[in-house]
């Protein structure tokens, strides 16, 4: 009996060591609250444009991937401390973020951001109170535009702020705002769209060059055969490549 236990232990340990090779499972971290990029469906699973994209990229790069959700505010700290390996959460490529993490090439065009406000309201967008999600390119855009910025932890709360009058308008990716504008009669786009950011890419640790190259190649192959454009059209993300 003792021998049996010993053998099992040794086998388990050996198997564990063999499986523990570099990136045998790639953990994809997302926010799960930013449709159509990523959201939780009725079953509570991660769904959306990035879910399909991520699964396809992992298949092309021959990687086993697993999805985890994380709060937006701590999404970068948890990546660099190694709780997951990739951020795929509608994160625009910016210089500030490049200083801390690495990005793959962009898989969406620089996305127009739009202002959503109460139907028929006349707003001076440079002097109004504008809601945006904290730590986003939209938040820094509002802060530098002269308008008063109110920040919220989740995208959902920014919309709620406009509905209840706390903010005059919300600035966010147009792909996120469009379905909301279509369905709610009391909300409408105001002003001109603004182009900010360098498109959305996957974020990785700066030390993780192998994995970045693999995903870069996979994104390139999806751009080349047009399957990325098909996904962008399906989820109505914005301009195609």
């Amino acid at each position, binding site marked *: 009996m003792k021998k049996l236990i010993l053998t099992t232990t040794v086998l388990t340990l050996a198997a564990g060591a063999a499986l523990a090779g570099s990136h045998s*499972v790639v953990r994809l971290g997302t926010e799960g609250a930013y*449709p159509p990029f990523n959201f939780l469906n009725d079953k*509570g699973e991660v769904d959306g444009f990035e879910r399909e994209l991520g699964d396809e990229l992992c298949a092309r790069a021959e990687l086993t991937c697993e999805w985890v959700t994380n709060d937006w505010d701590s999404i970068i700290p948890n990546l660099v401390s190694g709780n997951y*390996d990739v951020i795929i959460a509608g994160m625009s490529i910016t210089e500030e973020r490049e200083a801390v*993490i690495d990005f793959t090439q962009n898989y969406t065009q620089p996305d127009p951001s739009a202002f959503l406000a109460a139907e028929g309201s006349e707003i001076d967008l440079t002097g109004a109170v504008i809601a945006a999600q904290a730590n986003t390119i939209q938040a820094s855009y509002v802060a530098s535009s002269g308008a008063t910025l109110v920040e919220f932890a*989740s995208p959902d709360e920014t919309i709620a702020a406009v509905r209840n009058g706390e903010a005059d308008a919300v600035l966010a990716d147009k792909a996120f705002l469009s379905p909301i504008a279509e369905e709610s009669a009391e909300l409408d786009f105001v002003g001109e769209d603004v182009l900010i950011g360098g498109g959305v890419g996957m974020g990785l640790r700066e*030390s993780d060059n192998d994995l970045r190259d693999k995903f870069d190649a996979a994104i390139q192959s999806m751009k080349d055969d047009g399957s990325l454009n098909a996904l962008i059209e399906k989820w109505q993300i914005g301009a195609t490549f």
Partner: protein
Amino acid sequence: MASFCSDPSTLSGLSWLLCYLTTGKHVALYWSVGTVLLLLAITAPAALAFGFGGATAARSRFLPLQWLGRGYIAVVRGVPDIAFFLFFVIALDQFFEWARHKVKCPDWDQPIRQGSDFVVCPEAKLPLGNAAQWVHETYGFMLAVLTFAIVFGAFAANVLYGAMRAVPHPQLETAEAYGMSPRQTFWRILVPQMWVYALPGLSNLWMVLIKATPLLFLLGIEDIVYWARELGGAKTARFTDYPHGDWRVWYFLALLIFYLAFTRVSEIVLDRIMGRLTHGQATLAGDAQRKAV
């Protein structure tokens, strides 16, 4: 989920609500109630153990141990919870991984800190990168329990330290006069009598602990407040079969009722324990009990 839920757009009224409340997402909410209760059930005794250790250390006659106990109480009580949860848990996790790295990968030549990255060899990752999601979740849960236990243990230590000093000194002197050793005096005279002084403070801590569970989401554990916010937020028809407006107020109302009911039940149970502990004690309440009989 009932079979008639397959096409929710045709449903209305109660059957819609029934289907809506049994989606996978709602089931996750119900599970998270269990997570919170389990966390409380494990954390409360663990924190009490930390508190007992801290209080015993703080009144130790051996100076370094006394400093350790007092230092623990002072530092942890002074640091804001949210800072403690953000900093300490990541630091603790990295410390474990660093220790495993030193043991398992002695001939790893790259630095562990590369810029802002924290890189250990794959074998040292905790849990292993290829472990199943539930292992990651359990590990996160254990880290949460440990952090809660350390934080609330410090407060409990202070309460118990005060309670130990509140036991009438003649009791201890009498024990010594009877020839009991310091250890016997501690376990047989001091500890049984201190609880009645400690309980009001400890029951406060328990109430605060119940309310502090939403801090869990900082540690990546999806607790009831996270799910209430996620489920309550407005949903458009493109992304769900059950579109609705901003329902957060209803979900938070349900949370309010849950927490109120939970704290009320706690109060009743704590009152009973207090009554039992008071029995035969040389306190006002104990005296009143004696006279009532």
